[in-house]
């Protein structure tokens, strides 16, 4: 249970977590009662289920955010008239509303139903969580794509048109591939934000990682620090590995830079 790898993780996480105590961070590194660590590790599976929920919520929300946010960003750059005004207004409202309010509105006001997928069903709280986090992410992702789409030089589009591509094709084959590559750094931020914000679904009763941690240290109140360190380590591993993966993706697909016109 207390294998060195896990302890090292807990120690690494402690550097990132600030705990209000008189002691310095140095003494925090290996702090904790072994009885409390035992309690944490014996409940690791309980926290593990929460972590899976966190991962599932994050992936579903990021995907929904991309599917909705990318076209929304494109409309803000290339669209006009009513559609553009509606898209940009909805974006402003979503970005200006606290995520906890969005989630409560989705769950208690809109009252999204349970979704039955045959093999499994998604509870209405889960659906509300994905919709709330996903649409809010769409609002932010649309701004990432709006910025990167408009950052591609006008001459690129013009050159595309000059060989006979339609406007849509020139955007599709010339501008979008360049804009997507430039979106990766912004996307890293967005991923981290969504991952951490999944903890707010406690407001609609979903037991994700942080909520389950809260349950645990309510049960054994001496183990607050150990539980927090443990789940922080999980959050850290998740954000660290995805960011490294996105770094790799960014390097792999990078457009060679130079004195290109």
């Amino acid at each position, binding site marked *: 249970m207390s294998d060195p790898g896990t302890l090292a993780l807990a120690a690494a996480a402690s550097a990132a977590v600030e705990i209000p105590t008189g002691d310095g961070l140095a003494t925090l590194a290996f702090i904790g009662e072994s009885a409390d660590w035992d309690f944490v590790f014996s409940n690791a599976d309980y926290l593990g289920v929460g972590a899976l929920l966190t991962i599932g919520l994050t992936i579903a929300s990021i995907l929904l955010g991309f599917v909705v946010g990318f076209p929304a960003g494109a409309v803000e750059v290339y669209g006009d008239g009513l559609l553009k005004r509606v898209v940009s207004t909805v974006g402003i409202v979503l970005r200006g509303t606290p995520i906890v309010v969005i989630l409560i509105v989705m769950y208690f006001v809109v009252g999204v139903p349970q979704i039955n997928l045959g093999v499994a069903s998604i509870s209405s709280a889960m659906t509300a969580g994905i919709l709330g986090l996903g649409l809010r992410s769409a609002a932010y992702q649309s701004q990432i794509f709006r910025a990167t789409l408009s950052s591609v*030089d006008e001459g690129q589009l013009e050159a595309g048109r000059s060989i006979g*591509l339609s406007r849509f094709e020139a955007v599709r*084959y*010339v501008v979008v591939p360049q804009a997507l590559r430039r979106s990766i750094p912004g996307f890293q931020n967005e991923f981290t934000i969504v991952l951490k914000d999944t903890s707010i679904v406690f407001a609609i009763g979903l037991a994700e990682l942080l909520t389950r941690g809260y349950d645990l240290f309510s049960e054994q109140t001496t183990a607050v620090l150990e539980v927090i360190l443990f789940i922080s380590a999980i959050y850290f591993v998740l954000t660290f590995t995805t960011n490294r993966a996105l770094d790799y993706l960014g390097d792999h697909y990078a457009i060679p830079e130079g*004195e*290109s*016109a």
Partner: protein
Amino acid sequence: MSDDNDFLRVTDVSKWYGDEKVLEDVSFEMDRGDVTVLIGPSGSGKSTMLRCVNRLAEAQEGSILLDGEEVLSPDLDVDELRREVGMVFQGFNLFAHLTAVGNVALGPRRVLGLSETEARERAEAQLERVGLGEQFDSYPAELSGGQQQRVGIARALAMEPKLMLFDEPTSALDPELIGEVLEVMHGLVDEGMTMLVVTHEMSFAREVADEIVFLDDGRVVERGPPEQLFDRPEEERTGRFLERIASHD
């Protein structure tokens, strides 16, 4: 189809940007296989005139007949027009995310509907034509300016255009790189390509042009064969412009 005497017939073309008139009643004609060079001070409207021919800029008045078809007609399919009219840009405007082959193959693949293999073969043939047989898989940023511009020419040629537009193709190049681009353009002239060229390269213009059109302030001041326009300009403004240019050579 029309007879060769008016392959491209530009008649009284005018264009405004807001209140500012940038082209005023511009007229000239080209036969098939002709090379016409537009010269003039910067801001004279020569690039704008060129861009009106493939509708990257919209002329508000006048007529541009290409092979008997009215280019300025609102019913014209501009994508169809641009398929047949190649353009080479001052700033190259190569697709930054694609290799040399990718740049040249995009049009044949997506516009002409060739298969991946056919498009690639055509792109390689065009790159060899402009002397870039060794650079198939280089990205624009990995190429010199002269090489980039030659990719730009190959990209336009891959569509097998009936008219090529060159918008100051050597103006963004370091002096030592201009020659290789002009050499490629020379080759096209020898092959009989119909070319409308905006350039400040006067010796090139003198060598290859069938007609020189001198524009100033959006108007055609004078036009004629190079030996007449360069050696015996009739208009004072033409002479002054040529002197200014010559003093920079």
